[in-house]
């Protein structure tokens, strides 16, 4: 049996529903239909009344989730594409993110955002919005890069007493496969050394992890050993693991699929520069998507996002600095 990243997301939800009567799912077409990506397939049938179709009202969807959370439930909201979360923006950043701080009542909601680019997705079905949500106080932002993390982090997201923005990458839905679901996992807030190396650290997350790993493989053939850190969650961001890796390698390249200005890569570099300047043997570098909307055409899309190709160029250059 092989399990995809998408299967893992479905299984995590099935398990959360089975284990905890407070869990419910609310989103457009999540019920009998099983969701636009089939991430909730069969769940409405298996858990009657707890997987609920929503109208095209993202603002009210998230508002209702906050209300349910006040009543002690643990709702999972599926936004059809991350891009549509801009409609729910106010409820997410102002209502959900501040509830506990204002009122002492926790807000355990999980908002699933099918994120990131796919070929032909175009500017409104491709966005990576982790930066937005990480900037606001009060939110946990998860960015799983593996089948195992998709499963275990989603289960943890539901269990956490705070609002979690769960950025699941659409590009990984079908591509990525594992043999079985994990039985244990790193806790939220811990980054993972996805590959060890001594010459350079690449810090990344989500779909870009796989580009980075490909680069590490490629450069290994040239004799350069690259350490790859998978952040797993961008807020909290595991500065310690990043710093320890840079301490070993002296070189830092950050890769993110979101836009450059103030993105995850800026935050990582700012932390390392502030707290670990002496560790750096060369200027820390970053690669992001270009500063334009995500283009529709595959030719443009492939050039817009970071790929193993341009990461490798950057890595080689940084190794020589």
């Amino acid at each position, binding site marked *: 049996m092989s399990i995809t990243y998408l299967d893992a997301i479905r299984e995590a939800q099935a398990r959360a529903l089975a284990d905890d009567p407070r869990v419910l799912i609310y989103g457009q077409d999540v019920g009998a239909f099983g969701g636009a990506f089939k991430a909730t397939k069969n769940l409405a049938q298996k858990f009657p009344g707890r997987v609920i179709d929503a*109208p095209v*009202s993202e603002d*009210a969807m998230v508002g*209702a989730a906050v*209300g349910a959370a006040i009543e002690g439930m643990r709702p999972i909201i599926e936004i059809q594409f991350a891009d549509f979360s801009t409609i729910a923006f106010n409820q997410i950043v102002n209502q959900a*993110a501040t509830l506990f701080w*204002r009122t002492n009542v926790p807000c355990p909601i999980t908002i699933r955002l099918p994120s990131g680019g796919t070929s032909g997705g175009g500017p409104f079905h491709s966005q990576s919005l982790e930066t937005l949500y990480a900037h606001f106080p009060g939110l946990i932002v998860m960015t799983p890069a593996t089948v195992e993390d998709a499963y275990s982090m989603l289960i943890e997201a539901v269990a956490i007493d705070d609002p979690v923005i769960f950025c699941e990458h659409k590009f990984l839905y079908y591509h990525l496969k594992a043999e079985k679901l994990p039985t244990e996992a790193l806790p939220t807030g811990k980054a993972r050394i996805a590959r060890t190396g001594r010459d350079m650290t690449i810090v990344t997350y989500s779909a870009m992890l796989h580009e980075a790993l490909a680069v590490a493989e490629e450069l290994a053939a040239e004799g350069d050993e690259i350490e790859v850190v998978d952040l797993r969650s961008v807020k909290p961001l595991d500065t310690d693991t990043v710093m320890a890796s840079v301490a070993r390698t002296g070189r830092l390249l950050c890769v993110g699929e979101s836009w450059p200005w103030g993105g995850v890569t800026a935050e990582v570099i700012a932390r390392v520069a502030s707290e670990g300047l002496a560790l750096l043997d060369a200027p820390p570098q970053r690669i992001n998507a270009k500063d334009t909307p995500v283009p529709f055409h595959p030719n443009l899309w492939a050039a817009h996002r970071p790929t193993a190709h341009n990461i490798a160029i950057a890595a080689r250059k940084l190794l020589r600095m």
Partner: protein
Amino acid sequence: MVQSDIRPSAVVAFSGRDRMVQAFRWMLLARLLDDKFTSLYRGGKIQGGVFLGRGQEALSAAVGLSLRSGDIFAPLIRDAAGRLAFGEPILDAVRTYLGSVLGPMRGRDGNVHRGRPREGLLVMLSHLGAMISVVNGMLLARRLKGQTGQVGATCLGDGGTSTGAFHEGLNQAAIEKLPLVLVIANNQYAYSTPNSRQFACRHLVDKAIGYGVDGHSVDGTDLEACMKVVGQAVSRARQGQGPQLVVAELLRLCGHGEHDDANYVSAQLKQAPVGRDCLKVAEAWLREHDWADDMALEGWRRQALDTIEVAVATVQREPAPDALKENWCTLASKHLSEGFHEIP
């Protein structure tokens, strides 16, 4: 629109002597509390804005009184009366306005932003319309948990009806047939903006039909009418008739906030029936029914003033929040907080 299917007995239940007196006393307390906040504000004792319910107490008190313990109430900025009637301790109001760290908001939020969500009293977001779907979610959760017979009420202004959140929220409640009572205080203005620049339907209650919910309209200056109509709407919601939209016509008898002299309010409206002071109307009504006389009125007034003075005196001795004692942690899961290693 639904306005006629209550039996005479029900009318008595909604506006019998005890209820009317109770309502009036909450109105009075709210009015006097607002007056107190105004004078504290003028004396420089209040940070930020002061937002009054002057002219809206009848409607607001009717909402608060129509609810029971176990119900949900999400008031808005002009709902001092409704809050008190629903059971909000007056100390919560005073502590939040004066920034006592002992208040439910601990100085983190202020003035009208206060409540106790776990006790059914929600804390408003400034963003108008944003509370409706939150009430929906609570009602939905209760349904899932098998809790029945409870309703959720929330208030909004005429301006608030223009928000997308109002629309999504009311539609959501209608689809789920939730026991939501959405009360619109049409006080003719949103800040300075008159109704004519806010909507184009003849009457805001016309919106009910487009959502497939019951609509009720009421003279918001008339306490008895408010008690009946709001009471009936709450009953219908409680009985499973789905969301109820109540629209009251009245006039804001003050500025948008205490910084505003409201010189844009038309003289014509001030003279019109909608411009009546609901507190005076209610007082006259009680007198007419021989349910109140000078002595009773003066007694209630004294008691209200005493209550307020005691609360203010108490709170003025209470500590303000101390930045050094603040945990500066936004998350319930403290262990997931980022330590931003800032220098100082």
